[in-house]
């Protein structure tokens, strides 16, 4: 058995640093994403409601000023608060599930990031089945949500988790079908293959009218999959307190929070990779800019463009949130099964014909 321990040591010395580096990178991305996105969300919501948002916990000394960056330390303070809060496990709950479920959800989001690129060179692993992997892994979180709701032993949590699971599973179908359209057209599941196809031809969203529709179907389904308003019935405050998160607190709640914002980023990144040309610069796409501007390409510029697109999409998600009222459960299911699904099916057939014709 000495070979076993020798191998373990070898593993740690040879690959350990690499693996942990990747893991740390993903965790860092998730944490920074949550911090920035929460601040961004607060500011956007405040401006849309004619408020100013957090203005006090500044780190640049803008206390009380009417500057946009006031309160930039607010999310940091919130994170500290969450990490130092008491971790409450209700007496009658299923404690094993309560402890396990946040990690299932978190691992679901975490593993998904393995396949998500930040630019053509900046990604953890280059899969042949990249998009399929992302879609598959992002469906793991549902199990965690159901277990969280069940383990809480609280009716609101259970309702919230069942609603959430039903919603996520339902909206996976139109989202998957929309991406299938791209896969049919590009002929590959690989993210690099899809982006290269777009570099050769054009951004998918402008490829055909059906792809244009497919982008919106995917985006709406993505918003629904992340349980954001107007599709936030799983945690509808007015009905279910906080849905399946009701009984969670402290660090385990922070994990929910991290994975939720990570899911937002994943959806936006995937949408921009698949439909909006990924890390391709919009300059190259539109071909109307002078030649000298074309230097805005390469690994770092690619990351810039990809993140810019993703951030714009995240902003649109927030914009939705402060525009539309929450849907009822039946309206939610109506939208999924009777509007988005038929449209994406018709889209799929139509785009096949389109590909045959052109």
């Amino acid at each position, binding site marked *: 058995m000495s070979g076993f321990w020798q191998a373990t040591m070898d593993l740690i010395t040879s690959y350990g640093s690499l693996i942990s580096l990747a893991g740390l990178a993903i965790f860092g991305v998730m944490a920074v994403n949550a911090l920035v996105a929460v601040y961004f969300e607060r500011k956007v919501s405040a401006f849309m409601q004619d408020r*100013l948002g957090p203005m006090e916990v500044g780190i640049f000394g803008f206390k009380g000023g009417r500057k946009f960056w006031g309160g930039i330390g607010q999310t940091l303070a919130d994170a500290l608060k969450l990490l130092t809060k008491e971790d409450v496990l209700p007496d009658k709950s299923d404690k094993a599930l309560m402890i396990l479920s946040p990690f299932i959800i978190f691992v679901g989001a975490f593993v998904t990031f393995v396949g998500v690129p930040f630019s053509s060179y900046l990604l953890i692993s280059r899969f042949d089945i990249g998009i399929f992997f992302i879609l598959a892994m992002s469906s793991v979180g549902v199990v965690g949500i159901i277990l969280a709701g069940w383990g809480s032993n609280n009716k609101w949590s259970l309702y919230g988790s069942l609603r959430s699971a039903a919603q996520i599973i339902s909206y996976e179908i139109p989202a998957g079908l929309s991406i299938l359209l791209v896969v049919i057209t590009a002929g590959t599941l690989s993210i690099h293959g899809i982006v290269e196809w777009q570099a050769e031809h054009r951004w998918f969203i402008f490829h055909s009218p059906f792809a244009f529709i497919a982008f919106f179907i995917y985006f709406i389904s993505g918003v629904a999959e992340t349980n954001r308003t107007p599709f936030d019935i799983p945690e509808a405050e007015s009905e279910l307190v906080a849905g399946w998160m009701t009984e969670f607190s402290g660090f385990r709640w922070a994990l929910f929070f991290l994975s939720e914002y990570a899911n937002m980023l994943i959806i936006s990144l995937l949408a921009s990779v698949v439909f909006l040309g990924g890390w391709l610069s919009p300059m190259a796409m539109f071909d109307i800019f002078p030649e000298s501007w074309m230097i805005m390409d390469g690994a770092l510029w690619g990351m810039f463009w990809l993140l810019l697109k993703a951030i714009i999409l995240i902003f649109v998600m927030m914009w939705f949130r402060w525009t539309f009222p929450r849907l009822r459960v039946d309206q939610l299911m109506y939208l999924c099964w009777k509007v988005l699904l038929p449209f994406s099916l018709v889209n799929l057939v139509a785009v096949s014909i389109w590909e045959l014709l052109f």
Partner: protein
Amino acid sequence: MSEYFSNIVSGLKSFTKGLQLTMQHFNNRKKLVATLQYPHEKWPIPERNIGFELEEYNVIRSRLEVDIEDCIGCLKCERACPVDCIKIETIKPPKGGDFDCGVTTNGTQKKMLVPRFSIDMTECMFCNLCVFPCPEECIYMVGGPNSSKHEIEYEFAARERSPLIFEFAVATEKEIIAAGGIDYLNKKKGIVPDEKPKEVKSTLKKTEPKLNFEAVNAFTDRMTRALAKKAFTAGARAGSDAATVATQVKSALVDADKFLPEYESIIENIASSPLMTSAGPTTELKAKPASGPDIKLLNSITDKMVRGTAKKAFMAAKRAGKDGAGISDDIKKALTDAGKLTDEVIAILKSFSVPGNSEVSNESSVASAPDIKKLNSIEDKMVRGLAKKSFMAAKRAKSSAADTVAHILKDLKEADKLTADLEDIVKSIVPDTVDATPAPKTEFNLDIKKLNSIEDKMVRGLAKKSFMAAKRAKNSAADTVTNILNDLKEADKLTPDLEIIVKSIAPDTVAATQAPKTEFNLDIKKLNLIEDKMIRGMAKKAFMAAKRAASTPEETVAQIEAVLKENDKLIDEVQTTVKSLLENES
């Protein structure tokens, strides 16, 4: 199908429209932002006017404030407070002490020192109820009509409770000790002051003269009076002469837009009257030495045994008529004998060595003060009112007792109400005059209640009238009885029973000849054997009458029998029952 598509189209339309709307707000944020960054920016305080004509009703209830210089420690606000958030403690300086508590802006002589006046704003419910009873208008809500006294204050958030408990009392420890509140301090702190109170007294004695507010009090309007008093006090304290003060008052009123032509005469009055009151009884009191040591001082001794011994020695020494130093020596001796003398006790006893014992002089000053309550024996309401009015006027004028009596009599004569009885009563208000004729008063101890046993209302009224007349005339008991009997005889109402009753009122005349009351031990319960209710009632009545008249048992039985016989109720059975009263007696 068409509905399905039109639904989708309208959904898309409203989708874009909604997004446009929110985006407009997002872009216009600077123009539209309505949030106030509160701790850094504040709204201007709105004009508070809820529509009452009188400004003082438009009160802003933000915080209570107390002008502690005006507080007389009457505790009215404390009592008015429904949530008990006001806590006041007062110290009454000993009578005859030379500690002056000062004068309020309204001119009232303060009689208490207020060492504690705390308002717990965490408990206050802003009902404003404490504001109204204050006789000096020294407690008020800040801001609004009171903004001249204290500007509005509505942010007093704090991390702890203590900053929200406002302490208004400013009395220093030295002042408290000077006011004789040493035991108050000891109770509060549990320590003994190391300073001799007497030394402090001399340094802190207030020398401010009393202001003469009489003329200013003539203002009838409350607001005007307050304004005038303020100006008056300011002027008088600054040492201006009467004429200047009067002009100051006038200008203050004009400034406040309160001046009316009819006030001209009052202002003239102010100018002509002296600013300071002449040295009255109060100043005399001040000149008197401090009162003797108080036994309560000994309460600060913690050991029970020691306290007991010390108190015993104190009482013994006081009874022996010793002064403060003597008492303290006695206590010391007693404690040394008991082996209980500690430093603590010595420190307390030091405060005893105040020479002089003013109790006697105090008593005399109290006795010499005319007593308005004596006027209550005047029956006629009108006359009583008149008498009381002139009494008060005389008191205000600080007349002596004799002058007061003369004053009242004069007023009554003018009103054509003076009778001989009245004159007596009025004279009785002065203890000296009463003392001059002590004998009849003490001897006239007839009991009018005895007349209550007269059954006939008319007769009872007559008897009582003549009784009162006799009493007023300070007749002797015997004279009174004859007076009553004569009156009754004149009215043709005199029966033998009555005569007995009337005679019973004068124990000297009637009861003196008979057995003492304690011997009347017949048992009324024996009469309960009489079955007929009517007869029983009569018998009992007669029994009680006899008892009141302090008759002998034989007489009682005879009286009962006589009553029953009159009413034709004397049956054999009853007679035996009545007789049984006597049998058991033997």
